[in-house]
């Protein structure tokens, strides 16, 4: 763990109270302000007309138009004797007072302008941040055919607004926190009070408070720091870009964490099974939803085990190959120079390369990449006697299987899992596969998400929650919130009334 400790740089020594006071002359203030920001060139110092007011700010962080219209214009022709008077003339929404230099600098970095009047012990902080960022767009990583198409963007305020728009409930709590001794990112914990478990909110709060790190740029990094066990391969909390998904889970009593500058929300606790559920399952009718879920589960099985089974059968257990397949299989294998394990690993490696290249390259090139790769691997490799064509089908099936997983993070895990399983199968055949499976089972059983069992609702068995796990029953049956999030209020809606309507 020593390397993580290194990451937590010791927090700068807190400046003693006397040094932290607002200087009483303009020159001293100016010098202090510049010194603390290390004489950056984007420091802006404005002498406003004859009023005796000086405005300090970081020019790159503030909105220039607002600065002139709402701050300079109203006060430039007036004169003030106290800082309180200034406040009355400003038409900015968010104004605070501060009397410590530390706070002043922090808010300057947040996009505040500092309104200073010589001799006063406090200054005014007016928030006029410049809007750097993009507008709301379609969800691109978690696309759905049916359902809202909007995704989060990088602004915390917008993201909270999106959620507030879905859940117009006074019980929706937003708790702020700041993280990173250098990045000073603001973030929020969201939950529905009265539904979400108080104990879990406390745990989450404690975990976030306990983080001592210099900088976090994205919620995916925060996720790694607040997960139950950081050594597990599996994602123990959900990262999603869809506000509707977050709201659905909030209603089930879960907690969400949003970080400014990140377009992904963390939702916890999240169980293994829920990674294979998509919002779309609840947007279509229950039979189709169930079908999708079963499809994904079978895909999961194929994706993880199929290549390994191929390798095991061809390396050790030729007896199990059915007679009808035997001739085709051995004919296509006859020209391949490598043992099955190398053949499979090679092809899997190719496929991973293709996928990674597709993700890294610009979109237009990426598409041609797929076609080229498909042709090269699909036909040329077989013609050259490099691989058997049955393996191509199997690998393609396995790849598809990993892509249908709604969570990108879980999809990654599935793809990575294949490699150790192929190796185990190549060395120990079926025993290796079974060994890998047992290890995975034990591993999953040991995991927890925010203290809740990861394999819920299967173990510990909560039979009532099975109704919305690998299958989805109609809404009139699934009125209870899952036990996973230990909700304070169990019923999502009145079962009797829900049944009447359906």
């Amino acid at each position, binding site marked *: 763990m020593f390397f993580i400790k290194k990451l937590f740089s010791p927090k700068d020594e807190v400046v003693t109270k006397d040094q932290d006071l607002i200087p009483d002359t303009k020159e001293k203030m100016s010098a202090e302000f510049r010194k603390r920001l290390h004489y950056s060139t984007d420091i802006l110092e404005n002498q406003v007309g004859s009023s005796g007011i000086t405005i300090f700010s970081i020019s790159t962080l503030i909105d220039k138009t607002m600065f002139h219209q709402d701050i300079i214009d109203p006060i430039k022709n007036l004169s003030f004797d106290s800082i309180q008077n200034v406040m009355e003339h400003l038409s900015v929404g968010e104004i605070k007072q501060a009397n410590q230099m530390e706070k002043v600098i922090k808010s300057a970095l947040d996009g505040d302008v500092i309104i200073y009047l010589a001799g006063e012990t406090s200054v005014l902080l007016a928030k006029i941040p410049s809007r750097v960022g993009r507008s709301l767009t379609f969800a691109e990583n978690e696309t759905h055919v049916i359902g809202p198409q909007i995704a989060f963007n990088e602004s915390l305020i917008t993201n909270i607004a999106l959620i507030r728009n879905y859940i117009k409930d006074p019980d929706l709590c937003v708790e702020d926190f700041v993280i990173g001794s250098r990045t000073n990112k603001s973030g929020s914990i969201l939950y529905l009070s009265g539904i979400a478990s108080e104990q879990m909110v406390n745990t989450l709060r404690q975990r976030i408070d306990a983080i001592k790190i210099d900088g976090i740029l994205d919620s995916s990094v925060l996720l790694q720091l607040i997960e139950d066990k950081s050594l597990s391969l599996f994602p123990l909390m959900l990262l999603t870009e869809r506000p509707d998904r977050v709201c659905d889970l909030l209603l089930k009593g879960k907690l969400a964490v949003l970080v400014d500058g990140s377009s992904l929300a963390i939702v916890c606790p999240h169980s293994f099974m829920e990674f294979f559920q998509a919002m779309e399952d609840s947007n279509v009718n229950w039979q189709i939803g169930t079908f999708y879920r079963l499809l994904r589960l079978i895909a999961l099985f194929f994706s993880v085990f199929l290549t390994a089974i191929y390798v095991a059968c061809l390396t*050790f*257990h030729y*007896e*199990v*190959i*059915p*007679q*009808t*397949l035997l001739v085709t299989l051995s004919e296509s294998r006859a020209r391949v120079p490598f043992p099955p394990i190398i053949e499979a690993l090679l092809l899997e490696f190719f496929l991973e390369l293709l996928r990674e290249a597709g993700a890294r390259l610009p979109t237009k090139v990426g598409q041609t990449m797929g076609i080229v790769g498909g042709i090269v691997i699909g036909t040329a490799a077989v013609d050259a006697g490099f691989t058997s064509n049955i393996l191509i089908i199997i690998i393609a099936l396995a790849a598809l299987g990993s892509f249908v997983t709604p969570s990108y993070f879980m999809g990654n895990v599935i793809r990575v899992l294949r490699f150790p399983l192929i190796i185990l199968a190549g060395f*120990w*055949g*079926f*025993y290796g*596969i*079974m*060994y890998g*499976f*047992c*290890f995975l*089972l*034990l591993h999953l*059983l*040991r995991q927890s998400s925010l203290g809740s069992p990861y*394999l819920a609702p*299967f*173990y*510990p*068995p909560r039979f009532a929650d099975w109704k919305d796990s690998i299958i989805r029953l109609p809404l009139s049956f699934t009125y209870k919130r899952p036990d996973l999030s230990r909700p304070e209020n169990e019923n999502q809606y009145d079962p009797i009334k829900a049944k009447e309507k359906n």
Partner: protein
Amino acid sequence: MKVHYQPKPQSLLSSFLLIFIIQANQVGIGIHGFQRVIFMEAKQDGWISVLVAGFATHIVVFVIIKTLQIYGSTDIYGIHHEVYGKWLGKLFNSLYILYCLWIFLLILKNYIEVLQTWVFPTVPVWLFSFSILLLVIYGVTGGIRMIVGVCFFSIALSLWIFVFIVYPLRYTDFGHLLPVMESSLVPILKGAYKMTLTILGFEILYVIYPYMEKKEKLQKYAHIGVAASNFVYLLLMLLAIGYFSPGQLLSTIWPTLTLFKIVKLPFIERIEYFAVTFWLLIILPNLMLYLWAAVRGVKQSFGISQKKTLWVFATLIFVFSLFINTRIKINRFNDIFASLAFYFTFCYPLVLYAFALLKKKINTYKEQMK
């Protein structure tokens, strides 16, 4: 040492999980080949032996829970301590720990033997025992909640096996059962006695008991668990008698696995290869529960840290597993154990119950005197 042992509330288990614990711990390596051994004694009435043994198990389970209920929340180590006093109690605890380790070794060895005979004749023993031990250690360090989780999944994930009973059923002639009661009482009882190795596993109740919630319901769930495994045994026994002709059954070492040889699916020709390796999941809870029970015993009676004993025991088992390396040695090992296990699992609980009752009577009498 305290008699009462109250685990932390978060490690308590729902009482209905006892069904899975008992069933998973009973059904294990034994069901590979118990039919032959019983058939040797009781011929086609072997299924009656299975029923008799099952009935005896119900009685013993009833007594075990009665014994535990005398003391409330405790396990066998606590009871030993209470009943026999400090030193004798420790001796009995050591014997029980030894018993757990022995049965662990037995299961491990028999499974490795099956693996070597059916699938990997050339893979050395140490490799199998080493790899399985690692898995078991990984599981046991996860704590009892996790071990019970494995019990649950091991049963839930092996239900598919029942589907394949349909295949041998087509070749089954239940006429082999006729005439019923051809054997006299003695061979049937002998057959039931031979069930010991297969049917044991319910004695884990002695150790798991303090970890269960709602202790008053345990009696019911324990019996459901035992009944479920009895059903499995009976089914497999009937199937084996019907599927094999007498001579065939006598010469088949693992009738249950041989039953699989007939299954033929469009995509997999020989399911038994998969079934043999799949058994890893079925014996895993057995191994984990017994090792856990042994390790807990050491903690309870000698106060040595669980982690240390775990590694020591694992090393011991690994070393011993290397010495028992031929079929004959394994058979002898099984036979010695079976005769001891019979007294340990079927007779001893009754004795312990009697002692516990006596002790309690004495205690209350003493208190009254005061």
